[in-house]
């Protein structure tokens, strides 16, 4: 590389100062001092080690911890802006990536940033970047603002979409200042399209995020480091010969452990839960799963609605599938929601007027939902704050009205509120109200660490949504163990999901971040599978069998994730890759 080839020299005069001088024009004279001072400040910030540290420390929307700031500092100042962020689950790798992105953007070191994440985590990324760092990423999936990959400076894409030929070619034509790859262990195989794509993208800085970079053998670690610094570990044969003991490359050669540690410390930052245990008190999740016996009328209503849906399902083409699934979910949420479902079913000719009237008359005979009755008992015996989640507005209205009628102070949170109204509602919940009733929107971007009771009044069918909701309350900074109350009515699809799927894998007690490892590859279509199995089953025992076998398969996935996690931990055991110790080690 010679100077002339790779150096671009520019003499910009973006304000047209020379032209104005020639024409003897004065221009913004009052701003001369300010313009000079602002550039002086910019220079000062650009030359600092981590300019935004202070603002992050005091940002009330973000709980930033020492290890996260240290990790960001190490990546920026010592590792050239590229690294494998390999903290153990739940320590905030996303936040570390966010700090680095924000820092680089703020100091004009970056303009174009691409985040590649599994499809199930796209929303979570978008949410965290905007709420914690005010970084408005456009998502290629489900975001109406998305036009093309070249049109957005801050772009979020799924791994799987990025490898589509149309997208991958367009991505390769762009020079990216920063690329972030979440769950980077999916790049472990160098022969896959994903790996090759990341390898071939033009980029200045690369951040790879994975709690488990080594899943089966050390070639995976080798391949991931190859993305960061091609050639850094030599050829695979050289690496294997020196650092591994067996043909399967599953064991480290203890003779070269220290040497490998030294080499990896230039590309990997890893903090363990044990290391941060002195200042982060990890709290437990305590699930209370309440599968209630329905009243006679509730049972009748649900069964009859389900029969109507099943009849339509058997008769209809796939185009109706999602609508039918929605009716089924509405029917299980609350009686008021069931009425909403019936209305929609009538409008879409799933049922006729006569059926509608007869089912509405059954619904009208239900004075109070069994779920609400049970919830009232819990709330009345515990004066602490409760965050109640429901997926539907009709249920939200129903629960709020009932609670208010019974003298409770309630804050309401949903997607219809403006930004100001949302802030006001959160403030009210924090300062005045005992209860907040929130729709799904409340799960995104809001922090409620001041509350330690979460109620899933109805059950999100997407497990990542469950995590997102619990995560509002059970996060670093929570000072009490968190109670998670889950409701379902016996005989409903929700009851099977709760009992035979989520209970089997103990979904509600998973450590923060663990769920990502199990469900990262899910394309949010598991709920459709579940609904299909429910509809196709002709008896209760058939449903039970099917859900039980789905649960077994999830359990297997969890066990595999556990093995993988342990293997990564074994490989890194006794390795000094921690950001916390890093600064001292460097003598800084």
């Amino acid at each position: 590389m010679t100077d002339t080839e790779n150096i671009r020299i520019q003499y910009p005069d973006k304000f047209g100062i020379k032209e104005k001088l020639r024409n003897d024009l004065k221009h913004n004279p009052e701003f001369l001092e300010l313009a000079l001072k602002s550039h002086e400040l910019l220079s000062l910030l650009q030359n600092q080690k981590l300019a935004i540290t202070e603002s992050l420390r005091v940002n009330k929307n973000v709980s930033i911890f020492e290890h996260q700031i240290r990790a960001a500092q190490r990546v920026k100042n010592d590792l050239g802006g590229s690294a494998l962020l390999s903290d153990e689950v739940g320590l905030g790798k996303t936040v570390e990536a966010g700090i680095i992105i924000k820092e680089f953007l703020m100091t004009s070191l970056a303009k174009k940033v691409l985040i590649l994440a599994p499809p199930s985590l796209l929303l979570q990324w978008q949410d965290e970047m905007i709420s914690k760092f005010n970084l408005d990423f456009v998502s290629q999936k489900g975001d109406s603002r998305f036009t093309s990959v070249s049109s957005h400076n801050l772009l979020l894409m799924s791994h799987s979409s990025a490898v589509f030929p149309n997208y991958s070619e367009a991505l390769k034509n762009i020079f990216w200042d920063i690329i972030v790859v979440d769950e980077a262990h999916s790049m472990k195989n160098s022969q896959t399209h994903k790996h090759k794509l990341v390898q071939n993208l033009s980029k200045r800085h690369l951040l790879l995020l994975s709690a488990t970079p080594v899943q089966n053998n050390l070639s995976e670690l080798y391949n991931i480091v190859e993305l960061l610094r091609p050639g850094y570990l030599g050829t695979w044969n050289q690496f294997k010969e020196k650092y591994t003991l067996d043909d399967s490359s599953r064991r480290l050669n203890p003779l070269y452990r220290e040497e490998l540690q030294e080499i990896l410390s230039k590309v990997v930052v890893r903090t363990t839960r044990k290391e941060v245990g002195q200042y982060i008190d990890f709290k437990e999740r305590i699930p209370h799963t309440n599968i209630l016996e329905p009243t006679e009328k509730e049972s009748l209503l649900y069964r009859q609605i389900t029969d109507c849906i099943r009849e339509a399902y058997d008769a209809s083409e796939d185009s109706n599938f999602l609508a039918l699934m929605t009716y089924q979910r509405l029917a299980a949420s609350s009686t008021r929601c069931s009425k909403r479902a019936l209305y929609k079913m009538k409008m879409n000719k799933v049922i006729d007027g006569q059926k509608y009237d007869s089912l509405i008359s059954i619904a009208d005979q239900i004075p109070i939902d069994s779920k609400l009755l049970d919830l009232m008992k819990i709330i009345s015996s515990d004066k602490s704050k409760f965050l109640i989640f429901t997926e539907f507005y009709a249920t939200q209205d129903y629960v709020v009205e009932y609670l208010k009628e019974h003298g409770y102070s309630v804050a309401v949170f949903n997607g219809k509120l403006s930004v100001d109204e949302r802030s006001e509602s959160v403030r009210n919940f924090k300062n005045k109200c005992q209860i907040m009733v929130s729709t799904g929107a409340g799960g995104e971007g809001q922090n409620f660490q001041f509350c330690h009771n979460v109620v899933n009044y109805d059950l999100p069918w997407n497990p990542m949504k469950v995590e997102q909701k619990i995560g509002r309350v059970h996060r670093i900074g929570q000072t009490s163990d968190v109670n998670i109350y889950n409701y379902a009515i016996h005989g409903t699809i929700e009851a099977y999901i709760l009992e035979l799927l989520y209970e089997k894998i103990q979904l509600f007690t998973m450590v923060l971040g663990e769920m990502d490892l199990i469900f990262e590859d899910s394309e949010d279509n598991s709920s459709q599978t579940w609904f299909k199995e429910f509809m196709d089953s002709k008896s209760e025992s058939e449903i039970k069998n099917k859900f039980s076998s789905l649960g077994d398969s999830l359990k297997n996935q969890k066990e595999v994730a556990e093995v993988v996690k342990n293997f990564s931990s074994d490989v890194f055991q006794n390795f000094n890759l921690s950001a916390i110790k890093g600064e001292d080690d460097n003598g800084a």
Partner: protein
Amino acid sequence: MEPENKIREFVISFFSISKFQISEKSGVYTVLVPEINQNYFQKSKLVFTFDEKVSNEVNCDLIIPGSKILFQIMTLCSNKGSIVKKRTKYPTGIIVVRYHFFVHFSSTSNTSKLFSVDVDLQKLQITNIVDDLTEYDFAIDPKSLLENVTKSYIVALDDLKEKTDALKTDFINANQSQYQNDYKIFVTKFDDEIRELDNSINEKEKTSDDLEKIKKYRFMIMDKITDLEKEKNELLGNLEKKYKINLNYNLIACELILS
């Protein structure tokens, strides 16, 4: 001056110069944003402090590096080029142009600094005015401006390049050293991989008598080597892009001085 003090001085100057109504009580500043600027600041009233302790007690924004208001003000100010006419205390009729440059070098890291260069507009020579200046409007021969502005700018740029030469050399050297480091391990790995493949042909020839098989194997390895060479060239291109250097000498403001 500490960054915190610089920030405070800068922010307060901004609101004063921009004639926003500003008041302060116990470390909390309240600024009424004129209607014309409300869209930009997204608020009609800004309430902020520079003191972390105060921000914990009062519900207001804290202005420190990275805060939104500071970023908004800096963006606003750095997007307004400025030309001012001034005079020295005892002028003798010499007209000097003071060019202000924001020099920004960037690659995998960056560095930046403000520089100013004084050029005698008539003689087109570098000069150095050390006197205090006051704002003062005066007439200049339009012909002289038309003819000499570009020339004076070129003189200023030459001087600027000289002044920033050490900064530039250090920056380029540091960048080159990183590049060379990466380049070396990168090329070594590919060359070693190609050598390993090459050696494997010799091994095959030693251990097998089946000429047809050896021939097939050789072709397969040759294909692999071709692919590796291709991959090497592609990745080398990316490595060069990564270490591309931008040297920007931004002209951001200017003073015409009657000296």
